[in-house]
C-alpha cells in the first residue's frame, strides 16, 4: 500500500508566544511535529505493518523541518520529502499548501493519505480536505478508528464527542483526531537508522509550480494575544445586596445578561 502522511512542523504548545511588530517571534522557540500529525504518522506505520507497503512523510517548510521529518523516520516511516519553500515564498496559506501537496501527490498514486485534523498553530483544518479535493479522492476528517479490508475502509469519526461510522473505499484521505492511537516514542535504533533513510528535498521549481499558483488568499489583519485575565472581584455586604449587585454588574459591566 502506498501511504503518505502530511506533516507540519509547529510551535511547541508549551512555548510562550511573543508578538513583536505584528509577528510571532520564532527565535529560540521549540518546534515539534504537529501533535495531530503524530497520530497520522503512527496510524500510517500501523497500517503499513499490517498491510505492507511504504510510508512517505511529506512536509512543506524550510530546512529546519528536517529534524521533524527525521523524527518521523525514526518512528518508522520509510521515506521523507521536504518541499523547501524558503527561497520562493514569504508566506503560505492552506490553499497554497494544499496545491503544492496535491501537485506532488498527483502522479504518486497514493492509496491512503493521512494528515492531522488541524495544525495547532494555524488551526484551519483545511489542508487535508483541500488536498483530497484537488486529487479528486474521498476524505474523512477527525477519525478515531481506521479499518482497512482490501479496498473497503471503515472509519469511525469523532463528531463533537459522538461517533459516526463511515464506510468508504481507497484511495482515501483521512485526518487524525486525538484517540486514534498512542504515538510511539522513536526508539534509539530507530533514531540511528533514520539518518540512513532517504530524505528528498524539493523546491517549487521541481514540481513545476509558479509562485503565482500559490499566492495566499488570506490577508492577516492583526495578530494579538488574548487579553490577560484580570483579577476577580469579591463582593461584600449582606447576601441580598451582593446578589443585587452581582445581577446589576452582569447587566451593566459584563453585559452578559
Amino acid at each position, binding site marked *: 500500500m502506498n501511504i503518505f502522511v502530511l506533516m507540519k512542523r509547529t510551535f511547541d504548545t508549551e512555548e510562550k508566544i511573543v508578538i513583536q511588530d505584528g509577528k510571532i517571534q520564532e527565535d529560540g522557540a521549540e518546534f515539534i511535529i504537529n501533535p495531530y500529525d503524530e497520530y497520522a504518522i503512527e496510524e500510517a506505520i500501523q497500517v503499513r505493518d499490517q498491510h505492507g507497503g511504504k510510508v512517505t512523510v511529506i512536509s512543506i517548510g524550510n530546512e529546519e523541518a528536517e529534524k521533524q521529518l527525521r523524527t518521523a523516520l525514526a518512528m518508522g516511516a520509510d521515506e521523507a520529502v521536504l518541499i523547501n519553500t524558503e527561497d520562493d515564498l514569504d508566506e503560505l496559506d492552506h490553499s497554497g499548501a494544499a496545491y503544492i501537496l496535491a501537485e506532488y501527490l498527483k502522479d504518486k498514486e497514493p492509496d491512503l493519505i493521512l494528515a492531522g485534523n488541524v495544525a495547532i498553530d494555524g488551526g484551519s483544518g483545511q489542508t487535508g480536505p483541500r488536498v483530497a479535493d484537488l486529487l479528486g479522492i474521498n476524505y474523512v476528517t477527525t477519525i478515531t478508528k481506521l479499518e482497512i479490508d482490501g479496498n473497503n475502509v471503515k472509519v469511525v469519526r469523532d463528531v463533537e464527542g459522538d461517533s459516526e461510522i463511515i464506510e468508504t473505499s481507497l484511495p482515501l484521505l483521512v485526518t487524525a483526531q486525538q484517540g486514534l492511537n498512542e504515538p510511539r516514542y522513536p526508539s534509539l*535504533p530507530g*533514531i540511528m537508522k533514520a539518518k540512513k533513510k532517504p530524505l528528498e528535498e524539493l523546491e517549487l521549481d521541481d514540481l513545476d509550480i509558479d509562485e503565482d499558483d500559490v499566492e495566499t488568499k488570506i490577508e492577516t489583519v492583526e495578530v494579538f494575544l488574548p487579553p490577560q485575565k484580570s483579577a476577580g472581584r469579591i463582593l461584600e455586604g449582606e447576601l441580598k445586596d451582593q446578589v443585587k449587585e452581582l445581577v446589576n454588574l452582569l447587566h451593566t459591566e459584563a453585559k452578559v445578561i
Partner: protein
Amino acid sequence: MNFELTKEQLMIQEMVRDFAEKEIKPYAREHDENSTFPIETFKKMGELGLLGIPFPEEYGGSGGDTISYAIAVEEIGKACGGTGLSYAAAISLGASPIYYFGTEEQKQKWLVPMAKGETLGSFGLTEPNAGSDAGGTQTKAELVGDEYIINGEKQWITNAGYARQVIVTAVTGKREDGKKIITSLIVPTDAPGVKIRCDYDKMGVRASNTCEIVLENVRVPKENVLGDPKRGFSQFLQTLDGGRISIAALSVGIAQAAYEKALKYAKERYQFGQPISKFQAIQFKLADMAMEIELARNMVYKAAWLKDNNKPFGKEAAMAKLFASEMGFRVCNQAIQIHGGYGYMKEYDVERHLRDIKLMEIGEGTSEVQRLVISRLIGC
C-alpha cells in the same frame, strides 16, 4: 569547535525527555517513599533501546555515542534521581566492563541481552573494608581445577537484586611487591552460594535497587574471568572513569529539576506585593544556579566528547563528576531555600532532589577521591 548537538543527539534528548516526563516523573515520589525499583520502566527503556545507547549494533546496542548516553542519563535523572542512578549503573558499571574487557563469547552471552534491555547486570566492587582503597579487598577467589571458588562479601551494589550476573572483584594472589592481585569474575546471580539482600534504608536515590551480596563457596568456571586476570584493579579504575561521566550527567539532571522548580515557584510566589523572583536576593540565587548547571553540563559534554574521540578523559571525567555533584548539592539546597517552608515539605519534591544529589558526592568515588585523581593527573 562546535557546541551544537547533532540531529541524532537532539532527537534522543527530545525522545528521552518526553519519555521521562510521561513514564518516570509521575511515579518518582511513590518510588522514593516506598523505596521500590521501577522494573517496568526499565523494561520500557529496554524496548526503546535506551539500555544499549553506547554499544554497537552487533552487540545489541544502538550505536550511539557517550554524549547521547550522558544526555539520556541527565533527562532520566531529572525525572527521578533513583531511576537515573540505576540506569547509569546498568550501562556504565553493569555492561561497559564486559564490552571493554570481555571475550567475544562473554559479550554474546552477557552483553547482548543487557544492551537489548532484556537483562540487567551489576558491578560488585565495594566491600565493608574496601571501596576506593582496593587494597582492602577481602573477597577471595581460588582457582581449583577449572573453577574459581569465591568467598566474600560485597555491599551497596546497585541493581544486584534484578541482575542476571555481577562482576565481582576478588583477590587471587600476591605480586612480588606484596600487593594483592585483583581479578574480575562474572558471577551469575543464580549460582549456588550467592545470597543477595536488598534491604538498605537509604537517604536518597531510593528508587534505585541497592544490595548486599554474600558469596559462600561460589563456583564459577575460569572462562568467567573478565579481561586480564592480573589487571582487575586497573580495569575497574577504567570502568569508574567512564562511570564518572554518567554520575556527572545525573547530577546535572537532578540539579536542573530542582532549578526549574525553584524558578517556577519564585515567579508564582507573591510576597510584599510582588513575585519573589523580583527580589534581588532570589534573582542572584537563581542566576548562580543557572550558571553552575550550564558550566557543569559543558564539562560533562567535554569529558564525553573526549571519550568518544578516543582521547584521554580521566581527568576531565573526574572534574566533571566533582564539579557537577558539588554544584548539584548547592543548587538543590538553594532550591529548598527559595521554596522556604514549602521546600521542606515532600509535596514540593525539592527535598527529594537534595537527598538524591547527596549520593553523587559519594558514589563511584567520593569528592575527596576525585580530588586525589585530579591531583595525580596534574602531576602533584
